[in-house]
């Protein structure tokens, strides 16, 4: 933390080997968006195969069963590890944390740079794995052994270890980033910022980071053991001397908290946006914070609901069914608090607000459909059907896509100093939300009809090849094509507004948190020579004793809190 805020001047030190948290955030964001294009392309290829089986897919070619497995596996892997994680946590966390807590940078800038570099390396390794002899790994993103462990079963002798190495590297990158996030928030807050003055999105990223760091250990250990099984012929997960089910426990012990690792930052983004655009104080700040911690803790006790029918002791299902349904309690409170925040507000439907509201509306459906799967009795039927796929896309799409668009459109003026186009933004919004629902509602119905996952051609299954079911598949695929096409206006808007958009000014949304005090875009060191000081909480909107309907955290004056009776 030197007092020197003269930034680097050469292109290389400014944009490629930068130590500045904002540049590293942007690096994560654009790498994540690039990977999202690959993930979307894979979805296009395998959905086209399902709708028009055996026919050549324009822009891909014929999808064989081996290709299909690799496409679905890597679609899932990319969207979770290379899109949701880097964009929601690494990009927004890096960009927002120092700005929102009034610091000039992360406390470990070099660790931060290393984190991105390892992440970039992991992306390269993953992309290479698609082109090696035998093709990319196709044993599902959960990578269950013995299939994933033995080349003679998975037939991808190079693809499988490269895929696993890429995942392990990605996790190392996020561990480094996580250390940085936690240390920065705990130690580098500006003068006056108490625990309850920390903006909710920062809290959510911190809790997500804690969950990630506490859950990832078993997975890293498991990944190394699996890599040894693949390459050195050890037998950690083989039948002779090991146990295939052990991997599932290690994987899901991480895998389920991971859901909340990406969910929480998205919810944090929603908190910032709905308060700003309804000009309301966040309903139940402490309630939300405690319930988030409760969700985080509970999320460590639900993992085996992924394994009800996997051959674990059937009595265990009862315990995990109970813990899983219990998680609806804190998540329910969070959703109710978000909705209650709208009460008595003065809501303007800007593009970021539309995305934030869409998150709440769509995530609710994702949340409630989880009950069918957490309930062990119905999971026997629904396990590994399209009902599961529809359910988790109703959670992950709001998280990774809707939440990301909410965050990007809200903080774009701060990132680039210019406004995005509202009309294009609304076209993109409706062009994403409507096809999204048209895509995944049919998948619920197909799942109820017994359609199981990861099948490249349902013509082989008499009960699943009725014309009605095929029509649903075609409808969903067309919706996906529309969804992908409507991302073009977004990309155009993004890059055009970076250079041609209207100048934003420091605080275009009239919001309270500290990032809006800094110039747009913030210079190296963020706030110039004087750090802002914090006098009150982050959500003092429409305070009765003030003319203005907002009250920046950094404006000197009383705390302004009104005690309730």
């Amino acid at each position, binding site marked *: 933390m030197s007092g020197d805020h003269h930034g680097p001047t050469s292109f290389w030190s400014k944009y490629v080997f930068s130590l500045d948290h904002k540049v590293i955030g942007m690096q994560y964001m654009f790498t994540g968006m690039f990977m999202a294009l690959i993930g979307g392309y894979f979805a296009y290829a395998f959905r086209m195969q399902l709708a028009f089986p055996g026919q050549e897919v324009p822009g891909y070619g014929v999808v064989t*069963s081996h290709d299909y*497995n690799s496409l679905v596996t890597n679609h899932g892997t990319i969207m979770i590890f290379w899109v949701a994680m880097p964009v929601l946590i690494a990009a927004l966390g890096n960009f927002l944390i120092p700005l929102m807590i009034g610091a000039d940078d992360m406390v470990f800038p070099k660790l931060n740079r290393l984190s991105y570099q390892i992440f970039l390396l992991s992306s390269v390794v993953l992309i290479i794995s698609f082109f090696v002899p035998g093709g990319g790994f*196709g*044993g*599902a993103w*959960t990578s*269950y052994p*013995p*299939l994933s462990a033995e080349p003679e*079963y998975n*037939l991808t002798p190079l693809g499988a270890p490269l895929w696993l190495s890429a995942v392990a590297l990605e996790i190392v990158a996020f561990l480094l980033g996580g250390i940085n996030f936690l240390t920065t928030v705990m130690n580098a807050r500006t003068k006056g910022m108490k625990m309850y003055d920390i903006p909710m999105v920062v809290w959510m990223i911190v809790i997500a980071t804690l969950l990630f760091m506490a859950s990832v250990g078993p997975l890293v250990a498991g990944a190394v053991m699996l890599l040894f099984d693949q390459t050195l012929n050890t037998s950690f997960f083989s*039948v*002779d001397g090991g146990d295939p089910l052990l991997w599932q426990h290690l994987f899901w012990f991480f895998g389920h908290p991971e859901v909340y690792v990406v969910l929480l930052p998205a919810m944090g983004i929603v908190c910032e946006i709905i308060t700003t655009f*309804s000009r*309301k*104080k*966040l*309903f*139940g*700040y402490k309630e939300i914070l405690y319930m988030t911690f409760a969700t985080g803790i509970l999320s460590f006790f639900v993992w085996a609901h992924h394994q009800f*029918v*996997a*051959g674990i002791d059937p009595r265990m*299902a*009862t315990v995990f*069914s*109970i813990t899983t349904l*219990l998680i*609806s*309690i804190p998540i329910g409170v969070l959703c*109710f608090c978000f909705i*209650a925040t*709208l*009460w*008595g507000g*003065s809501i*303007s439907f800007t593009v970021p607000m539309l995305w934030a509201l869409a998150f709440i*509306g769509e995530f609710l*459906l994702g949340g*409630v459909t989880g*009950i069918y799967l957490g*309930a*062990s*009795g*119905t999971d*026997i039927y629904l396990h590994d059907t399209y009902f599961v796929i529809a359910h988790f896309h109703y959670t992950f799409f709001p998280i990774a896509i809707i939440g990301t668009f909410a965050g990007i459109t809200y903080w774009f003026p701060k990132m680039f100093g210019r406004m995005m186009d509202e009309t294009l933004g609304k076209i993109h919004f409706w062009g994403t939300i409507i096809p999204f629902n048209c895509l995944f509602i049919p998948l619920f*119905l197909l799942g*109820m009809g*017994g359609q*199981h996952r990861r*099948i490249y*051609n349902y013509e*082989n299954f*008499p*009960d*699943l090849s009725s014309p009605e079911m095929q029509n649903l598949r075609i409808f969903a695929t067309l919706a996906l094509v529309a969804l992908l096409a409507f991302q073009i206006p977004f990309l155009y808007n993004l890059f055009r507004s970076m250079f041609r958009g209207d100048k934003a000014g420091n605080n275009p949304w009239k919001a309270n948190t500290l990032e809006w005090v800094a110039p747009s875009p913030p210079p190296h060191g963020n706030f110039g020579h004087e750090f802002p000081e914090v006098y009150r909480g982050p959500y003092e*909107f*429409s305070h009765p004793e003030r003319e203005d309907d907002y009250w920046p955290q950094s404006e000197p004056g009383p705390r302004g809190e*009104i005690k*309730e009776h």
Partner: protein
Amino acid sequence: MIQWFIPQASSFAGDVDFLFLLITLVVGFWFVLTELVFFGLMVRYQKREGVKAEYITGDGHEKHWVHVPHWMVIVCDVLLIVGAIMVWNKIKIDMPEKIDATIKVIGQQWAWTFVHPGPDGILDTEDDITTIDELHVQKGLVYKFDLSSKDVLHNFSVPVFRLKQDAVPGRTISGWFQPTKSGTFDIQCAEMCGTAHGIMNALLHIEDEDSHAFWLKQNTVLAQK
């Protein structure tokens, strides 16, 4: 609701479908109510010129807005947990006392092998009938199955029974079913098992007493030739 899409062909299919309906009613009520409130608030509190938003912290008495519905949600949770456990126990834990026949189900890349007891009704004797990708059972009998795998994980999935169970190499996992409707239905492999996972299907033939006896006789004759 599931039965609108796919027939019920086992004694416990109705239980699964009833649980699905129960969850739909409980969860659907809350989902619709929450969405209605959510959209209602959006319409009611749109920005109006000259109207300032209210200052509500949510820390005082307004907590009830969240807590009252919330306690009601917990009550619903308990109801659903009880339902889920009852159905689970019936299918996966409580083995019926009287078993009419035992079959072996063996998964491998990428086919199902079924070993049926022959006319003597006892498994592991000379007259056992082994088939690939077709399972023959008699309507009304209670079957126990011993499920195993020769290589990777598979999943013995019979949608019309509402039954699913992973096959794990090195283990034998048992379960049961009682077919209640004659016909020919799909058996799936519902666990990713490699390149040809997508064609690892088999057919389930549920036959009434006469036609099952005929099938038994026919295959026994063939075996003796």
